[in-house]
Every structure is written in C-alpha cells, then in structure tokens.
C-alpha cells in the first residue's frame, strides 16, 4: 500500500434519497470516507444498506427521477462531482473513475463485439483513432488474461463465459487507466475458483496502475483478502470504519460483531450458524435513534432517542455507537449507583 497524505477521492456527508409515492427513501444518509492512491477500501453491508447506491452516486448514475443526491460532496482532484456539469461528469466516467458491475452476464451489450465495447471508451476519452483504439482493446484483453485476444475481441458477449465476461468488464473499466476503480460486487455472480482469479487480477492491476479501489461487497472473505480499510454500512449509514485487521481482530459496533459471529467457523464445532435477530428498518421510516437499536443486544433508552455520531477512537477506529461514548460510561456508572 503506497499512501500519500492527500486522498484522491473524498466523500463528505453524501446523502442520496429517493422521492417516491410512498415517501422519501433515505437510501444513503450522510456518509463520509476517503480513498488514497493505491488504497483498497471495502464497503460492506447486507443487501439494501446503501452500498451500491453509494457507488452509483459517486459517478452520478442514480436513476433520476426518483433518485437524487440530496446533499454532501464528492471531491475528486479538487472538483465536487455533485455540482459539475453533466458534460464534465461524462469525461470523468470511465476515464478517471471507472466501475465494474455485479452481473457480467447482463452488463455487456449483447449485440456489440466486446472489443468494440472496450475501444469505444478509448476513442471517446483518449481521442484515439479507430485502429489504435482497437489495438489497445486487444492489448487490454491480453492484460486481463484472455487467451487469443485478437479472436475474442471480435466476439459478442454470448460467446464468452461468465468469468471471461467479467474480465472483459475489467478490461473495459481499466482501458483508460483510471485513478479510481469502483468494483460493485465484482465476484458475486461467479464460481468460487473464478472469484479468486478475478480478485487476484484486480489486485495485480491495482499494483501496476497504482489506482485506488472501492470494493463493494457483502462477502467478508473478499474484504479480508483485498481491503486495506473497511467501512461497514447499515441502513444508509457507515457504522464502523477501520483498518481491515482491526475490524477482524476487534469489531466494536454490535452490528459488525454480529456480522463476524454469523460467519461459519472452521475450528469450532457449530450446530447452527449465528444470526442477527430482527430485520433492517424500512428506508421510508427510519427510527429517530440508532438504526440498529431494535436489534442490538446492548440497547439502552438513549439508543432509541438519539442517533450516535461516527466517532474516532484512540486507535483510529471510527464507530457509530453510544457504547463508545462518555455518555455511556457516565450512564452505566449512574445505573450502577442506583442499584
């Protein structure tokens, strides 16, 4: 990990809301994180926690209406991507910030040769001629480990396997050597053996190109393998943000603890897998207090009254939980005293 001090991407107080007939769904509700050159940030959480919406918001790809970035900033090399013009944004997409999607089967255009789909970005962003762009596309296919790339470039997606299509997606995303790569569940739809290859490929290319990677996943195994830092999302908020080894060694937030407990363990005799009781609150009707409170084994009255802030601990771990505030200790002491 090569880390310079200034982050290349900074997300500050980002809010993405969906305005529907049922009401306002606060899918992403004020999140902050930053990404440095060469760093891999994992964003984890269960389905619907807002991690994909976060990534789409960075590139302003939220379907609008009903979606809208309701507040916050996305700072990329001094520009706020939330406010720049659509034309400027278009020049960032696929050029400086790229994205890989979850479904390689449906994310490639079925009627265009894959080489053309890669070359298109090069012609647009790098002003390459038709021939040069095509040659570079073939090179990219070679770089992502596709055998006989000249032949494959002329083929259409249906002639390729799932793993190969995801390689094509990666080739497409990296063709213009972006500074940030957002990988939205890049391995979820693939076989386990292919998963490992694809992760290895992303890591390898990251080392060569020195880009920052945002790895969006629900798979803690992927996080452990690839990420330097992790942001755990729950119901539109980041609830814990820490270096990967610290999260795995000592999870602070009860939700993170629950997530790690629910992993099957190899060395212990387990009859049943652990689960987290209850379910995620509806995005249309968020509780006033901590969003995890109703499922939390440590819940206190204050948890239901007021939402805690994301507070940095002494060792750099940020956590959004009353348990790690002075209020909690004071309160506990008081309660002890009452007893």
């Amino acid at each position, binding site marked *: 990990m090569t880390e310079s001090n200034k982050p290349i991407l900074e997300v500050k107080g980002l809010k993405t809301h969906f305005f529907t007939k049922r009401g306002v769904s606060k899918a992403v509700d004020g999140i902050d994180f930053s990404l440095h050159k060469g760093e891999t940030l994992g964003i984890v959480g269960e389905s619907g926690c807002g991690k994909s919406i976060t990534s789409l918001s960075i590139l302003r790809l939220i379907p609008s209406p009903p979606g809208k970035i309701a507040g916050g900033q996305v700072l990329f090399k001094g520009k706020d991507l939330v406010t720049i013009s659509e034309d400027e944004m278009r020049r960032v997409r696929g050029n400086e910030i790229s994205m890989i*999607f979850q479904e390689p089967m449906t994310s490639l255009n079925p009627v265009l040769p894959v080489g053309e789909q890669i070359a298109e970005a090069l012609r647009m962003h790098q002003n390459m001629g038709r021939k040069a762009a095509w040659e570079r596309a073939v090179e990219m296919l070679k770089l992502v480990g596709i055998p006989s790339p000249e032949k494959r470039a002329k083929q259409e997606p249906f002639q390729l396997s799932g793993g190969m299509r995801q390689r094509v997606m990666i080739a497409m995303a990296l063709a213009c050597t972006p500074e940030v790569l957002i990988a939205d569940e890049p391995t979820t739809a693939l076989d386990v053996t292919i998963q490992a290859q694809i992760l290895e490929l992303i890591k390898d290319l990251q080392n060569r190109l020195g880009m920052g990677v945002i790895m969006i996943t629900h798979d803690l195994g992927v996080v452990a393998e690839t990420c330097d830092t992790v942001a755990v999302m729950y119901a539109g908020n980041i609830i814990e943000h820490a270096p990967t080894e610290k999260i795995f060694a000592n999870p602070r937030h009860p939700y993170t603890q629950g997530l790690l407990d629910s992993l099957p363990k190899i060395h212990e005799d387990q009859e049943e897998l652990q689960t987290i009781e209850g379910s995620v609150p509806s995005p249309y009707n968020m509780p006033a207090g901590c969003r995890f409170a109703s499922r939390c084994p440590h819940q206190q009255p204050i948890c239901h009254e007021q939402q805690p802030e994301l507070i940095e601990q002494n060792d750099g771990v940020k956590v959004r939980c009353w348990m790690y505030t002075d209020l909690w200790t004071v309160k506990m002491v008081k309660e002890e005293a009452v007893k």
Partner: protein
Amino acid sequence: MLMFIVRRLLQTIPVIIGVTFVVFFIMQLVPGDPAVLLAGEGASKETIEAIRDQLGLNRPLLVQYFDYLTSVFRGDFGVSLKNSQPVLDEILVRLPITVELSFFSILITIVLGMAAGIISAIKPYSLKDTTVMIVALLGISLPSFWFGLMLMYFFSVKLQILPVAGWDSILHVILPALTLGAGGAAIVARMTRSSMLEVIRQDYIRTARAKGVRESVIIYKHGLRNALIPVITVVGLQFGALLGGTVLVESIFAINGLGRMIVDSIRMRDLPMVQGGVLVASLVFVVVNLIVDVLYRFFNKRIELN
C-alpha cells in the same frame, strides 16, 4: 449465413405448393360458375357446356389442380377467362405498381413509426410522449378506407395540392402510401417505444453510462440496436397486412395494381387470374419474410446458435 439462406429458400417450396392448393380449392367452393359468367346471360345449356369443355372445367378437380401446378412451375400461369390474355403478362404489368406503393408505405411505416417511438421513449410520460401515443392510437383505430377518403378530401379537394387518384407521378404516391402505411407506423411506434423503454433499463445501458458514453450514442448505438429486434418482427408482419391493405387502397385511389386486379378477378370468377395474383402476392410475402429473417440474424447473432 449462406447455408441458412439456401435452407430457408428450400423451405419456401412446400409453402408455395400449399398456397396454390388452398387458393385452387377455395375458389372451387366459392359460389358462381365461370362458364355461366363467360357465356353471358341467357346462354343456352349447350354453349355453357361447350365453354366448360374448352376450359377443361369438367375434368376431375385433382387433375385440374395438378395440371395447374405443373404449368405454374413451367412459368405458365394460364390465360385470363375474361380476355384470354396470359395471366403472367397482366401480373407483370400490375406488380411493379403495387411493389412501388408497398415500398413507400413500408418506408412510411418504418421511418415515421420508429422516429415517433424513439421520441416517445426518450422522455416517457412527457407531453410529447402522450401526444405521440394518442396519435398512434388513432392511427391504429382509424379504418384505412375512411382515413384514405379523409386525406383525399383534405389534400386533394380542399387544399388541391395533391392529385385525387391515379398513378402517374411521385405526387400520386403520397396519399395512398400514407393511407397504407399509417396503421403500420402506429404499431411500429408503439412497439419501438415499449422495446426502447425495456432496453434502456438494462444493465448494459448503465455500463455504457458508466463508461462516459454520450446520451445520444447510448440511445442510437446501445439502445436502438437492441430495441430493433422485436420491431423488425412487427415490420415483417406489417408486410402481410400490406397485401390486404393494397386491395383497399388501390380501389379507393383507382390504382391499377395487383390488389385491384385480384378483386376485379374475384368478381368475374376469373379463376386463373385470382390464382396467379394470389400466388405472386404470396411469393412476395415469402421473399419478404426471408429478408426479415436474414436481417434478424444480422442484428442478433445469438440466433445462429439456436
């Protein structure tokens, strides 16, 4: 691809034979005796019988049919019962007119229909979309004979900018082609719209956006090519409807095309003419279907696998 075209061509042979069979026997079931019509009113039984003999109408039906079939394959469509002219000659005079009319009307169907569909799909539920779709609904609902007469009344009688009827110049083509193409254009517009809306929601469109592709390129390159696949089917089907349409439109605008020839011949019980006309019309239909199939594969190479 070549193998595919050859195979499809071979498949058309049984279709053509089937068509001749159906046409031949349906005409036998239609009331009315060509011999009686030819002999004229008040002709004696002997005269009618003589004509029947001369035309071979009293031989067994199957013999008549096979006789007809073999001559068709030799390029002999028989002679008209009305004026003893070879059927093929008459058809060759009429066919280009109908082909021209069909060509322009299908052009209207495709260009007008797809343009309207795309305009609608770009901003769904907008005022533009609603207007286009209401017009399209009218296009489907209005019967073509009424629509043709209205066009004629408005442009030829009131404004006097286009000829009323006949078939001389390119100006004569406009109203009949519009009458014939309007219904198809409406169907194509609705199909294009729904197909575009379906395609625009797909993951690969999001991928193209994430790549930084311009919105217009997304619509025309990434969207339309995928959306066209079902539209081509509909356009192909419109050709079928066209056969029926030309009959009406050629009658309204007094155009001496194939459709009108078939109608007149049916009225006269001119059996060889009807058979020849319908046969040629079906041949055209079969060829058009072949072209549609080839286009289909061009736009969607996945079909090759199936």
